[in-house]
């Protein structure tokens, strides 16, 4: 998988692009208990809400320049005139971003939630949720980023926001389901279902959008 290696190389060198979102995630999770004087037991109430929002935000940050750099320096043209599949390259890039940013954040989510709720099972249940949701968000925002290749455009934000909100709602409900001991698996399956559609659809749409922008 030479493509994977090359994408990894590029992302690795842009420390700000991958470590930045992780730091922001960390900042949010750290800031949350600092800004309110909660009792430890009340902290849990808002915690998961903030956790999902933090994942959402850091994924949004991560994808900000996922395509725009290539667009500006002319690399996209070089990629398009090659015979290799453009869609495939897009998927690869999203996967690399997920491995470098989404997965570490999922692990951090686990640690933070363990630190807050002190309930090991609940914290473990956070891992699949955050792993899947970070992947979904990455795909969504990659789409948004492609739509906003042109600086003036807000299209990306307009389209991705309504798509991201339902995911957030499902995430919120899953935790409650887990706490009540019902349906947790069903929610995971629902997310996986979304993911599988998105994984296939997003690279196709994105490649179409980018080609339209280059024209």
């Amino acid at each position, binding site marked *: 998988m030479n493509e994977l290696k090359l994408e990894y190389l590029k992302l690795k*060198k*842009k420390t700000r692009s991958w470590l930045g979102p992780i730091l922001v995630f960390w900042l949010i999770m750290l800031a949350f208990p600092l800004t309110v004087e909660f009792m430890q037991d009340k902290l849990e109430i808002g915690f998961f809400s903030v956790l999902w929002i933090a994942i959402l935000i850091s994924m949004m940050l991560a994808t900000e320049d996922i395509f725009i750099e290539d667009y500006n320096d*002319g690399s996209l043209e070089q990629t398009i005139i090659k015979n290799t599949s453009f869609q495939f390259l897009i998927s690869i890039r999203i996967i690399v971003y997920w491995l470098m940013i989404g997965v570490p954040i999922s692990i951090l989510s686990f640690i933070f939630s363990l630190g807050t709720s002190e309930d090991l099972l609940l914290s473990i249940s956070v891992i699949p949720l955050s792993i899947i949701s970070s992947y979904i968000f990455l795909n969504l925002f990659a789409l948004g980023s492609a739509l906003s290749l042109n600086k003036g455009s807000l299209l990306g934000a307009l389209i991705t926001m309504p798509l991201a909100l339902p995911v957030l709602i499902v995430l919120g409900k899953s935790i409650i389901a887990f706490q009540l001991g019902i349906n947790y698996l069903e929610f995971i399956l629902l997310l996986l279902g979304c993911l599988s559609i998105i994984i296939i659809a997003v690279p196709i749409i994105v490649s179409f959008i980018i080609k339209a922008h280059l024209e």
Partner: protein
Amino acid sequence: MDNITSVIAENISYKVNDNKLFHNLSFSLNTGESLHIKGPNGSGKSTLLRIILGITNPTKGSISINSTKDKCYLGHKNALKNYLSLDDNILLMEFDNHPCLKKYIEILDLKRYLDVNVANLSYGQQKKLGLLRLFLNSSDLIILDEPFVGLDKETQIILTDFLTDQLKENKTLIYTSHIECDIDSKTLLLK
């Protein structure tokens, strides 16, 4: 030398927002031939190249290219990663194992800079690095948009010689340049 037609353009026209760049343009090129697209600034040379590459669609007409290999293209932008060293950029172009890499690095005098970030290179050095894509190409069709820009005299000569050699190897060349150069080629004048 067998003269197979390699590029045929039939009646292509292009317009953006009522700005007609060219109209009913037709030409054909055989392998081993070269086409110099001329015209003043903004006459649509770069656009024509992008149409030949298939990046842009012409408003009318059609282009057919007789090759299944990747095309070799170099535009106004170098497609380099600023924040990576020269070495890493070569890796990204997937030339790290190319047999001629060493030779051209030597010729272009880039050896000393292999671990310098591209952002720190001089304008001409960046252009040279971009030209590696051309020097190490393995395609039939070479498309260049102002390749001589920013190069010093010496490198311009190296490039001209290289292109002449490529034509002898039966490749097809299409290029634009405001700088005169000694490549034996057909001319297409826009506007």
